[in-house]
C-alpha cells in the first residue's frame, strides 16, 4: 500500500491570511547538472582503486524523485568484504606510523578538494537521495568538508588530550541513506585523524556520493587501502561487521540493526559505537517566541523530509497555547514547497525510497486508526517518484504508535502538557534518547529542563544544528559513543589502562 493518505483536514488559509495558492506558482529554478557525469557502472573502491566485485553482481541506484535509475552499483559479497578488510589491514601499520602532521595534511587536502567540487557533490547527493538541493548545497556538503578540516587539526594534537593513545587498527563503518556524504565524513574523518584505516559501507540506496568521495581520496593522494568503500545491502553490512579482523565498528542506523550489531561483535574485543534512532521531544512553553518556535518546529520535523534520526517528531506544546500554536503551525506547513529536489526553491524533496514511503504510510494509517487527527498540506505532488505530504497529527495519546515509534518521515505528532514536570515526564517517556528541543523565553527554565531530559543533544530556542566541534550522540537505546568534538575522538583510540569493550 504505497499511497498518500488522503488528507482528512486539508489546511486552508484562514481569515486575514494572504494566500496566492496555485494562482501565482513559483517560477522553476532547477540546478543544472551539465557540469558533472555519472558513470553507468561503479565498482568497489578497494586498495586505492575501483575494482569489479568478485560477486559479479550489480544493482541499480535510482533517483527517488523520478524513479529513474542513475547507475549500476557493485554488490560486495563475503569475498569482496574480505579483500577490503585485508587492504585496510595492510595499510594500517604505515598509516598509523605516519606522523600526525602528515595525516593532518591528507585530511586538509580532502577537505579542500571536497569544497572545490562542492556543487558537483550537492547535485549528485540530491539526485541519489531526493533531498532538496538547498540542503545538500548549504548543509550536507559544507558540513562534510568542515568535518575533514576539523579532524585534520586533531591528527597532530591527540597527545594533548589522550597521552599515550594509539590507533585501534581497522574500523568497519556502516552508514545510512539519510545523509550519505555527511555520514561518510562523520565516520571517516575521525578514524583517519586518529590513525585508523577504514572499510566503509554506504547504504545501498544512496552510494554515489561515497563512491565519488573515493575520487577525492585518490586526488588527495591518500595512501592505498587507508579508506575502502564497499557497496551492497544489509548482507554486505553484516559480512563487514562480522569480519574477524576489525578492531572497531561504527554504525549509524536503526536501533533494531544496532542491537543486532552489538550482538554480532559480542565477545570479540571490538570497540563499538552506535548512533541509532530517536523520537525527539520538542517542548514549546507558552512564553516562547511563537513565530520563531514555529520555524524551529518546522525545521525540526520537515528538514530532510523528516529522514533525520534526531528529528523533533514529538511536539509537546503547553496547553494554554496549543490551539493558537497548532493553527499557526498548520498555516506554516501549507507554505512548504514540496517538489523537485533539484529546484532551488524546494523546501521538501522526495521520500528516499518506496520502502520508506510504505513504512510512513503504514504508521500514518495506524495513527488514524488509533484515533489521532491527521492534518496534511494541500500541495501538488509530482506524478512520478515517492512523495509524502507534510503532515501533523493532533489529538495524539502517548500510547499511540505514532507517538512511540520512529516514523522517519515528515510526520509530526502533537501532544500537550501543563507543568514543566509533566513536560519532563512525557518527553522522557521513550526508550530513545537522541535529541530534544526546548522553546521558552526563560533561561533558568531551559537549564532546568535540559538537565532533566534524557537526550544527547538539546537544542534550546533552535533546532537541528550540527557542528564537528559539538559532540553528537544518544542516551539509552539511541546508542552510545559520541561523534564530533574532543569526546568523539575517544571511540577511535586505544588508551592505556582502559576497560575492555564487550
Amino acid at each position: 500500500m504505497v499511497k498518500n493518505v488522503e488528507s482528512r483536514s486539508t489546511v486552508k488559509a484562514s481569515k486575514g491570511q494572504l494566500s496566492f495558492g496555485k494562482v501565482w506558482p513559483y517560477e522553476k529554478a532547477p540546478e543544472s547538472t551539465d557540469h558533472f557525469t555519472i558513470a553507468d557502472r561503479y565498482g568497489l573502491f578497494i586498495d586505492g582503486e575501483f575494482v569489479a566485485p568478485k560477486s559479479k553482481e550489480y544493482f541499480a541506484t535510482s533517483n527517488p524523485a523520478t524513479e529513474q535509475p542513475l547507475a549500476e552499483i557493485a554488490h560486495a559479497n563475503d569475498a569482496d568484504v574480505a579483500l577490503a578488510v585485508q587492504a585496510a589491514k595492510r595499510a594500517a601499520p604505515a598509516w598509523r606510523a605516519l606522523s600526525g602532521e602528515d595525516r593532518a595534511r591528507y585530511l586538509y587536502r580532502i577537505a579542500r578538494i571536497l569544497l572545490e567540487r562542492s556543487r558537483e557533490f550537492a547535485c549528485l547527493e540530491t539526485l541519489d537521495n531526493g533531498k532538496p538541493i538547498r540542503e545538500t548545497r548549504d548543509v550536507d556538503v559544507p558540513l562534510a568538508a568542515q568535518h575533514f578540516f576539523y579532524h585534520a587539526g586533531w591528527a597532530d594534537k591527540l597527545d594533548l588530550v589522550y597521552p599515550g593513545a594509539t590507533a585501534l587498527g581497522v574500523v568497519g563503518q556502516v552508514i545510512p541513506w539519510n545523509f550519505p556524504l555527511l555520514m561518510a565524513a562523520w565516520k571517516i574523518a575521525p578514524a583517519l585523524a586518529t590513525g585508523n584505516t577504514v572499510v566503509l559501507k554506504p547504504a545501498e540506496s544512496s552510494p554515489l556520493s561515497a563512491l565519488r568521495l573515493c575520487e577525492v581520496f585518490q586526488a588527495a593522494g591518500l595512501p592505498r587501502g587507508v579508506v575502502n568503500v564497499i557497496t551492497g545491502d544489509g548482507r554486505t553490512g553484516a559480512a563487514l561487521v562480522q569480519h574477524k579482523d576489525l578492531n572497531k565498528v561504527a554504525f549509524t542506523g536503526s536501533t533494531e540493526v544496532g542491537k543486532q550489531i552489538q550482538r554480532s561483535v559480542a565477545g570479540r574485543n571490538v570497540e563499538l559505537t552506535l548512533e541509532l534512532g530517536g523520537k525527539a521531544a520538542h517542548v514549546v512553553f507558552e512564553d516562547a517566541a511563537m513565530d520563531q518556535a514555529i520555524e524551529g518546529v518546522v525545521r525540526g520535523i520537515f528538514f530532510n523530509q523528516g529522514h533525520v534520526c534526531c528529528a523533533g517528531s514529538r511536539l509537546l506544546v503547553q496547553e494554554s497555547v496549543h490551539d493558537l500554536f497548532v493553527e499557526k503551525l498548520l498555516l506554516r506547513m501549507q507554505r512548504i514547497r514540496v517538489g523537485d529536489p533539484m529546484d532551488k526553491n524546494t523546501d521538501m524533496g522526495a521520500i528516499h525510497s518506496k520502502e520508506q514511503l510504505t513504512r510512513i504510510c503504514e504508521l500514518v494509517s495506524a495513527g488514524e486508526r488509533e484515533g489521532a487527527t491527521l492534518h496534511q498540506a494541500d500541495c501538488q505532488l509530482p506524478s512520478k517518484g515517492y512523495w509524502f505530504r507534510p503532515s501533523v497529527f493532533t489529538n495524539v495519546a502517548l500510547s499511540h504508535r505514532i507517538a512511540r515509534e520512529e516514523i522517519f518521515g515528515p510526520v509530526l505528532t502533537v501532544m500537550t502538557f501543563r507543568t514543566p514536570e509533566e513536560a519532563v515526564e512525557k518527553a522522557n517517556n521513550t526508550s530513545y534518547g537522541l535529541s530534544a528541543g526546548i522553546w521558552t523565553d526563560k533561561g533558568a527554565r531551559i537549564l532546568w529542563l535540559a538537565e532533566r531530559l534524557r537526550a544527547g543533544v538539546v537544542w534550546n530556542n533552535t533546532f537541528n544544528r550540527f557542528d564537528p566541534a559539538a559532540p553528537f550522540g544518544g542516551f539509552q537505546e539511541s546508542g552510545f559513543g559520541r561523534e564530533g568534538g574532543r569526546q568523539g575522538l575517544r571511540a577511535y583510540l586505544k588508551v592505556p589502562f582502559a576497560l575492555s569493550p564487550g
Partner: protein
Amino acid sequence: MTLPVKKTYKLFVGGKFPRSESARSYQPSETKHIHVTRGSRKDLRDAVLAARIGQKAWSSSSAYLRGQILYRLAEMLETRSAALCEELAQSGVTKANAKREVLASIALAIWYAGLPDKLQSLLGSQNAVQGPFFSFSTIEPSGVVGVIAPETPSLLGMLALCLPVLVSGNAVVALCSESAPCASLALGEVFATSDFPGGTINLLAGLRSELAIHFASHRDIDGLLVAGKPDALITQAAADNVKRVRYCDLPAAAFRDVSRLRSLHWVEPFVEVKTLWHPVAQ
C-alpha cells in the same frame, strides 16, 4: 564466658539488609563454615527498582556533596578496617594482605572523593561552533549500572569497579565475589553509614552463573561492568536495551597497584555527554 554473637550475611538493597526473597543460602567456597544469603533474579529486580530511586537522589546531589559522601566512605572504611580485615581473613586472605587490601581501598575512596566536582571540567567542553550559537557539553550519569565484581580481591575489587561508576552519579547494583562474599557484603554496612541515599548502591550475593545473565538482560539496567574476560553471551543479552558494556580483565595481582585503578577511563564508559545549543542574540 559470653557466647559471641554471630553475623548473618544478608543482601544490601535500598539501604536495608534483606534476606533473599528465595530464602536460599549457599556456602562460599572460601568460607565453607558460613552460609550466605543467595540472591535470586527477583532480588535483582528489587535491587534495580531501589537503584532507580537511589539514582535520582544521588545524581541530583551536588558534586560537592557527592565528594563529601565518598570521603565519608573513606572515613567509615578506616574506622571499620579491623572488622574488614577479619572478614577478609575468614576467606583465607593473610593478615598482611588483608591489611594492605583495606588500606588500598581507603586510598581509592579518597581519590574518588575528590573527583565528582572535577568531572565536568575534565570530560565536558565548550564547543566552538559556527554561527551565533553558544554550545557546551556536560556529562551525566548513564543511570543504573550493574557491576559483577571480581572473585579476588573481593573487597578492593568490588570498590575498584563500583567507585568509577558511582562517582558520576550512577547507581549501582553489584554482585559480590561468589567465593568470598563476606568482606564485600560487609561493605554494605560501610555504605549504609556513609550518607549515600538509599538505593545508590545495592549488593547482592549469589551464584555468578545464575545471576550474571539476568544483569545483562534486565531492561532497566543502563550499563554493565563485568570483571573478567569479555563474554559473548553477556554482551549479547545486554544488547536488548543497548547497554553500555565494559569488562575489567585485570588479574588479581594487578589490583595491588592502586595507581592502576585510578583512571578516568573507567569513569568514561558510564557517563553520557549531553550537548546543549542556544542562540546568541541581542
